[in-house]
């Protein structure tokens, strides 16, 4: 029976069916299933499969986003029980995320956040128009592993360089790894400014983040 439930959970993620994902999470709690077991055996395989299918072009962006949302909704249902049990998902690392100052484009950055969360990172999304100092302050506050800075405009990508420069100036460049992304951003740009990671899309960003925290594989 539990296997059947896990299968349904996976399917709810594949279908981006929020209501079903939520109902199944509640059902798991009623049955006394360990939330971590349900996440790892039910929802997570769905997220992984969606990620793989998206990478090879077989699933589309809205399906990817809605899979991530279904997973988030299920986790939210489990959170009180996980807190009660004193258990938590194994965190792959903490990521502070934001669109750089002067730029209010949100979608790419939020998508990266969703995918990182779905894959086990703890994400602190500061939103858009975020100054370098706010990114660094938050990273210090939560003891982050990574800072992700998004820029859609050729005029704002320079703030990604400001972030890297500021971290160096404050002697924090060894402590926080920096990931950059956004339409005009390239691997070449990332290298030029001294960022540690770059990805063209949200799935790639997960792989880069895992590599940067030494959890690749």
């Amino acid at each position, binding site marked *: 029976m539990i296997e059947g439930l896990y299968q349904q959970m996976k399917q709810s993620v594949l279908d981006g069916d929020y209501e079903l994902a939520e109902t199944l999470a509640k059902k798991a709690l009623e049955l006394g299933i360990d939330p971590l077991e349900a996440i790892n055996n039910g929802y997570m395989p769905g997220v992984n499969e969606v990620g793989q299918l*998206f990478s090879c*072009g077989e699933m*589309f*962006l*809205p399906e990817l986003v809605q899979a991530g949302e279904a997973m988030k909704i299920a986790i939210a249902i489990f959170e009180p029980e996980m807190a009660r049990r004193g258990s938590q998902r194994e965190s792959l690392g903490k990521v502070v995320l934001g669109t750089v100052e*002067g730029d*209010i*484009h949100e*979608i*790419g950055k939020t*998508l990266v956040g969703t995918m990182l969360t779905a894959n086990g990172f703890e994400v602190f999304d500061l939103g858009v*128009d975020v100054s370098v100092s706010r990114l660094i302050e938050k990273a210090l506050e939560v003891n982050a592993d990574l800072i992700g800075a998004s820029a859609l405009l*050729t*005029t704002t990508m*320079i703030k990604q360089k400001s972030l890297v420069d500021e971290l160096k100036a404050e002697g924090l460049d060894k402590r926080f790894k920096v990931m950059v992304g956004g*339409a*005009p951003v390239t691997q*070449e*740009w990332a290298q030029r400014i001294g960022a540690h990671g770059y990805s063209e*899309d*949200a799935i790639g960003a997960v792989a880069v983040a895992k590599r940067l925290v030494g959890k690749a594989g």
Partner: protein
Amino acid sequence: MKLTAEILSRDEQQRIHDHSLRVLWEAGVQFHSLKALKLLAEAGATVDWETKIARIPEKLVIQTLETAPKSFVLGARNSSYDYPMPSPHTRYTMDGTSAFATDFETGERRYGTLKDLERGVRVFMAADMGVMCWPPCCASDAPDGSRPLHEFLTMLRFCSKHGNHELHHPNQVPYFVAALKAICGDDDAVRQRKIASVVYCPVAPLMHDAEMCDAYLDLGAYDVPILILPMPATGTTGPASLFSNIVQGNAEALSSIVLYQLARPGRPLIYGSASGSLDFASGGFLTGVPEMVLQTAAMAVMGRFYGLPNTATGCVSDAKATGIQAVIEKVITTLPAVLVSADLVSGIGEIETSQNLILEQVLIDNEIAHFCERLHQGVDTSPQKDLIEDIIHVGPGGNFLKARSTRVMARSDEFYIPQLAVRQSYENWLALGSPDMRDRAREKVREILNSPLVDPLPEVVSREIDEILREADKELSAEE
């Protein structure tokens, strides 16, 4: 008659307008500029100061559409390039502000520089279908704080057609105005000649940023025209149907019109759009697709619905290299905009979703523009083209080569004589080394770049602009 396209019925235009009014009032529009919010609140919009969302009532839309000029002349540094809008013909803008440029000599794709920009606009000067220049690439080698000024003024220095670009911050406005005065003579001439305009992209969905918005409000004092260019993409920053994305783009355009007309009634505006289509597989913004141009052509029609000069994004491609895909996409994204008689199609010279400037492409796109214009002109049945008497005179078995009308028509607009297309016989073509359009475009580009600068600025003005830029570099970089 002319070959035209009908893309929205009158009823459909009215529905888009009515839906847009609902969006403006029920969802509202977020303005990050406090100045903008104050203007809107004073004029009767309902402003939530916390969320910065202004709900805009219909009466403000109607009132500001009335004050927006229905025609004006887009001036040029060389007045023979002045372009009255609306226009009976479709003309073109340069595509603008790509991140990358393809090096003409090495073929390497790299971040654009001021030199690339200069070369791009010089080639654009030779594109006879082009009337509005736009810095074709960003200048990654210009100082950050003053970069748009370098881009704007390099364009105006090397191109004497109308120039359009953007400013990012109010602190750039005084330098820009000083440069316009240096070129035009004085404040009045700046207002009257309108040799430069600014492009304004509301941020989809339904947002306006602060600094660019404030800069453009400041430029109102000089009647600098604004090209309004909403860019919602179906399925990400806009809803996932063409019709509804048009509604949203139209609402974003109307919200811009309301703001800038409230701030300065009578300021010239161009109603445009660069709505995109989502690549569902990658999340990328697509332009070289039918779904894009259906939206921008439809929005050009909405511009006409409001009686405003208009522009539609077209002649664009998502191809990563010049060649078959690029040309197919450019043709399909040009023709519908031409067939609805857009005043301007934006723009030519780039591939890779407007992210890569290729000098040869400027001239290839100019050729596409000519072909599309010829299609749009259709079959002319006027008395000048009615040659029935010649048919009767020549009769069965003769030919028309000796007819006077043939000689006249051969050099008239009845037949477009291509600038690049290869039409030699096969043997001649082989003998010439089998050139294709791109080879011929390369030759012409080389010729243009080796020729003396067209319409150079007077030395004294050029020096003044150098001084303005030096000052801007010093002051604005210090503020960074």
